[in-house]
């Protein structure tokens, strides 16, 4: 079958990258470690969105709900129980998955734009719930016990592991029969069902899996910021950034979100850190331009520029005019 070799190569490259990340982490400046952690968190959230939207066609605007779920789960667990930070990350993923499974009951009845609006509504509802949940600090949120959370090298290593999990899951989706079925249901759901694809099961698994990853990223965010609040971790910006980063790089590909995260973070988020409104404006414009002129993202532009000959060979042949 095609792709087996590619899959092995991708898996090996991923493993090497993760090991290198873990190995070089201690030697880096604290500022670089922090930057690395931030980028890897964004990568995880973008890749989780990519699995859901890029591969399975389920366009979500609900990433913020699971970043918040993960961050609050980790924060509350460390503040009120004696479990360790690593267990708290696992718990964050589990609770995010559980919430996703519950939200699946109403949300997975919806399709297309309705699903998107539904996920946005769910994320706004989560933000409102957290704002009014006094035990968890209400609008001002909560502060994590500083002596029990990882920082510096350990935090960066945690981010590497979480991002590697996201990349690994994406690679699985990219090269497996499961992922192929997702592509089929993305392209035409009734036809996929008619060919034996268990549509609901595939949508459910993708939705929950993506949410678990996002929840684990949320725990890392909580450790990095030390304090979590509804306006921070449940901000719709998380959802928008995920969409932007995945789309700019190239949704539906393994490497696209890696490129996109880097481009968007360096090109926009950092440069415009002090100009919040301008940043939104520029991000919005970029999103429109990408969707209009490069719907397959920067990765596709690069591939096309690099392989003009191969492109000519795969051009659609004549006879493809709309009948």
């Amino acid at each position: 079958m095609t792709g087996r070799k590619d899959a092995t190569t991708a898996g090996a490259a991923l493993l090497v990258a993760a090991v290198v990340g873990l190995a070089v982490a201690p030697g880096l400046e604290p500022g670089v470690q922090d930057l690395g952690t931030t980028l890897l968190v964004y990568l995880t959230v973008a890749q989780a969105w990519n699995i859901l939207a890029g591969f399975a066609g389920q366009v979500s605007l609900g990433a913020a709900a699971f970043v918040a779920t993960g961050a609050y789960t980790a924060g509350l667990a460390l503040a009120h129980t004696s479990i360790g930070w690593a267990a708290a990350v696992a718990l964050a993923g589990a609770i995010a998955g559980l919430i996703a499974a519950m939200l699946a009951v109403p949300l997975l009845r919806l399709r297309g734009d309705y699903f998107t609006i539904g996920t946005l509504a769910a994320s706004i509802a989560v933000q409102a719930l957290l704002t009014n949940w006094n035990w968890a600090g209400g609008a001002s949120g909560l502060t994590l016990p500083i002596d029990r959370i990882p920082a510096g090298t350990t935090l960066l290593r945690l981010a590497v592991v979480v991002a590697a999990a996201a990349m690994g899951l994406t690679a699985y989706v990219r090269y497996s029969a499961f992922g192929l079925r997702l592509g089929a249901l993305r392209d035409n759901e009734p036809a996929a069902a008619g060919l034996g694809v268990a549509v609901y099961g595939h949508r459910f698994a993708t939705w929950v899996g993506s949410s678990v990853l996002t929840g684990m990223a949320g725990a890392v965010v909580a450790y990095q910021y030390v304090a979590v609040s509804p306006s921070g971790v449940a901000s719709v910006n998380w959802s928008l950034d995920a969409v932007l980063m995945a789309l700019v790089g190239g949704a539906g590909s393994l490497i696209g979100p890696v490129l996109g995260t880097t481009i968007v973070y360096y090109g926009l988020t950092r440069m415009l850190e002090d100009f919040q409104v301008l940043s939104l404006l520029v991000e919005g414009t970029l999103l429109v331009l990408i969707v209009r002129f490069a719907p397959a993202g920067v990765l596709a532009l690069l591939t096309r520029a690099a392989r003009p000959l191969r492109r000519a060979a795969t051009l659609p042949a004549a006879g493809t005019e709309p009948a």
Partner: protein
Amino acid sequence: MSGQLAVRDLHKRFGGVQALGGVDLLVAPGEAVAVIGPNGAGKSTLLKTIAGGHRPDRGEVWLGPDRLDRLPPHRITRSGVALAHQVPRPFPQLTVRDNVRVAAMARGHGATVEQVLTLCELDTKADRPAASLAVLDLKRLEVARALATDPTVLMLDEVAAGLAGRELDEAIALIRRIHATGRSLLLVEHIERVVREIVGRVLVLDWGKPIAEGTPDEIARDNRVREVYLGDGSATTSSRRPAPPPASEPLLAVHGLTAGYGDLVALRDVSLDVRPGEIVAVLGANGAGKSTLCGSIMGAVRVRGGSVRVGGTEITTAPPYRRAGLGMAYCPEGRRVFAELTVRENLQLGAPLRLAPQQLRERLAEVYDIFPVLAERGAQLAGTLSGGQQQMLAVGRALMSRPRLLICDEISLGLAPVAVDTLYRALTQINDRGVAILLVEQNVHRCLALADRACVLSRGRLSYAGPAADLLHDDRLDEAYFGTSDDHETTT
């Protein structure tokens, strides 16, 4: 591979329409059965209900010892029943091979993918994205995917529709090869040849109920069947009118037209004209450029070279809404009625915006005069009409602007002969009122019987222009349709 397909007392209702009213059907292992009937008889609904796309209101579907009618669609497929739809539904972003692989996973027989691709003659295109396939290959892919699920019963919904000549031969040969592997076949088909050459037994549906069952020959002799399915049999005779005076100024003049999409040139240097009151046929195989020609005339496709003039006004680059004001009306391929609006509302939308109520009533009356069935169904949602009725509505809607020129794109596509008869009689009436008609068709003989003049497009070029009657004895038609028409490989 065994198991008898048994359908018992199947009922399905959509809103006010009883699509299936108690259908019983047995398909023995390895048998091939065809379901025929006029448009709206419930044929596609029957197949979709068996496949799980619709849930039956009443009745049962069994395959061997398994009851299927309560299962979700993917479980039905895994149980051994697959459906190739009338309108192909490819996964456009996946390659042809991956399209088939998805299907092959249904029952865990991944090894058959290459065999299926070869059998369906898609092996040379396996690595292309499905979005790049032409119509015939899309149909092959639809069949290939259904076949790849390794079905005990393969259901084919009009897979030969829109094919002619060699393409039709190939489609029949493909179905036969599939049948030879021992699978049961259940076909819905309008094309008599396909039915006669493949199946041993025919079930005739009308208004959701079986009205006859037997061998193809028995069915062909059954008078009741002839009546519902073929109309009264005399309908195909045409009433040829004297040609309009040739001296008159052309209503539509297309000169040296070139148009295309992206890298593809779909139309090269095409010239034709339509004089007032005349019927001009445009013929050609799939992909010949017929729809592009319509699109260029109506402004939906950007013209690269040449000119289009209507009543002496140059409109080559005019926006579509301005063209509508010049006395042209367009009846697009695939009907395109507004499904969520009523029949009357659809018609109203075809009329100019500011029209006095009295005038609107007059125009509605004119349309109802030509299509009485639309008057009966004025308050019904257009989406609930049968295919033939929707086509009538589409023509009626075009007439509401009182055009001098009516452009019809493939109005007989996918319709039962009796519905086509009705439409062609209506076209004659419309033409009798002085409306010129540009008739784009695949249905050659029907179209030529009606038209004064004809043009043949073959792969984007005009290969014939002249009296319609002469074309029936001209090789050019054969050449345009059958000679090189299956050659979709030519890259520009």
